């Protein structure tokens, strides 16, 4: 796979992402025509009359939701790529090693405690709580999965421990939602299956910041992640400080995934499927994978959100139902094809 072909591929991905974005803002519980969309956007310009109710629905609900969906999809895609690069294994993703459920637990706890202790919530309290939860659960998984002999985490141990820690945190969330008074925290469906229905411009701002900064940092380490593909010792011989690299990449991953999870709940399998699609299209160079998985993650999650909104409209499905329905068969296919020895 040559560099020019990869560039063409990325340009094509940008085009597809934009196309899907347009579809996403047009269709939903109510449809907006392109003309209505342009009138709504134009109403933001100074000196225009106040937007109508329909225009406000578009500007305050539909549009931020579509943008948040792009950002969360990008976060999950990049998170999957980073995890797979770090563990040199194409079968891990943030949802499988506990990061997402821990982040969801952190957010749920924040809602409940905020209600009980009347904590003055600032804009950043929720994302920080989510990150704390994500860090704790991810660390727990690695600590428990590490072998006693050589300190390395085998992939089987990692997946099994991830399963257990996920179950633990999801049950903790279940308990919290049972005792919670806050209506959002009470929705167990929200945390376990994810939804973008709570999107607003504030959440867009926060998720945009972490996603974009995180991706830029990740991109800076793409070359080192490439070297890691041939092994930790070999990467060291190529001048990579492997321990430092692991810490940076794990931190970036936890932050982008946890912040996305704080606003949308746990959305599984996007991070697993996206890097695979890209490797099939354009090889394993991490510079290409990081940019590509941001675009592909955004596209896929937007498509999933469209399906979630259109299939039972005017109601909607939790988006996690859609992503799992697609992701689980892919996961099983990969597991079987690679023939891991248990």
């Amino acid at each position, binding site marked *: *796979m040559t560099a020019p072909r990869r560039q063409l591929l990325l340009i094509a991905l940008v085009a597809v992402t934009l196309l899907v974005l347009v579809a996403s803002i047009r269709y939903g519980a109510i449809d907006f025509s392109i003309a209505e969309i342009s009138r709504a956007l134009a109403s933001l310009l100074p000196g225009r009359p106040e937007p109508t109710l329909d225009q406000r629905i578009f500007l305050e609900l539909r549009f931020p939701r579509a943008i948040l969906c792009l950002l969360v999809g990008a976060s999950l895609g990049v998170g999957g790529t980073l995890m797979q690069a770090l563990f*040199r*294994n*194409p079968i891990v993703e943030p949802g499988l090693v506990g990061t997402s459920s821990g982040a969801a637990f952190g957010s749920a706890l924040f809602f409940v405690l905020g209600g009980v202790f009347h904590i003055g919530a600032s804009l950043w309290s929720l994302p920080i709580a989510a990150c704390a939860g994500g860090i704790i659960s991810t660390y727990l998984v690695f600590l428990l999965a590490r072998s006693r002999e050589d300190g390395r985490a085998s992939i089987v141990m990692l997946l099994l421990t991830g399963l257990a820690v996920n179950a633990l945190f999801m049950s903790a969330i279940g308990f919290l939602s049972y005792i919670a008074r806050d209506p959002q925290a009470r929705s167990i469906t929200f945390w376990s299956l994810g939804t973008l229905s709570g999107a607003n411009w504030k959440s867009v701002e926060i998720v945009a910041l972490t996603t974009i900064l995180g991706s830029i940092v990740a991109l800076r380490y793409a*070359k080192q992640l*490439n*070297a890691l*593909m*041939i*092994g930790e*010792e*070999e990467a*060291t*011989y*190529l*001048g*990579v*400080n492997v321990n430092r690299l692991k810490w940076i990449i794990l931190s970036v991953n936890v932050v982008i995934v946890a912040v996305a999870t704080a606003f949308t709940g746990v959305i599984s399998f996007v991070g697993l499927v996206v890097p695979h699609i890209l*490797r099939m299209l354009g*090889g*394993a*160079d991490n510079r290409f994978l990081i940019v590509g998985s941001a675009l592909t993650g955004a596209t896929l999650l937007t498509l999933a959100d469209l399906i979630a909104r259109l299939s039972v409209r005017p109601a909607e499905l939790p988006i996690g139902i859609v992503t799992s329905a697609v992701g689980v068969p892919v996961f099983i296919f990969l597991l079987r094809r690679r023939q891991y020895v248990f």
Partner: protein
Amino acid sequence: MLVGSNITFRVGSKELISDISASFAPGGLHLLVGPNGAGKSTLVKVLARLLRPQTGTVEYEGVDVSQTSEAELAKRRAVLSQAIEIAFPLTVREVVMMGRYPHFSGRPGPTDEQIVDEVMEHFDVTEFKDRYYQSLSGGERQRVNFARVLAQLWSHSAVDSCRYLFLDEPLTFLDIRHQIDFMKRIRSFTKDADVVTVGVVHDLNLAARFADQILMLNGGRIVAHGTPAEVLTTERITHVFGVEPTMVQTTDAGIHLIFN
């Protein structure tokens, strides 16, 4: 010049190598031999600074390597290991290009591209440069890795600076034709006056045939260090390896060992 002084490396309370001091001059091929558990691989990893010894120092041209950053070291030190597995679809050219990673930041420059093409030609891997590494045979893979390692050391970084090549049992899993082919290539690269090469090879006959200097280890200590003829004596091999060899003088003034 590579100098190791009083190196001891422990894992837990077990000493893998004990108080080893040795120097290795450029322009020659230095091979470590010894039975399993003698500490050969550990010593190579300490000299290449993958492992940091509890006591003792390793110096490249008088500079203690524990003070050098990974990135600086990688510009003049490379290691050829055994059978590398890659779980992702990387092309041969991408793998070889990794050897240039220490030499550029961001994207490879024209010099890097040129060097990669040269080493691929040199190792006869140009014909499968666009194939995936995973699809190659063991011998082909090791040729690709050798090309990658030499791409790392291809250019002289500074006039008065040596380049260091370490071999961590690179011949394991290779057939005899590949083993001899590899030793010939390693030897020809080692001939450069500024290249220090230290490696581990299991086959005593390969060591006898290709090494300029042999360092024999047993139980983490040096037993002998010198030319193959000096080190590989019947009594010493019997003592260290527990098998008695018959020495045969070959026509090209080398020695050959036959084990009964």
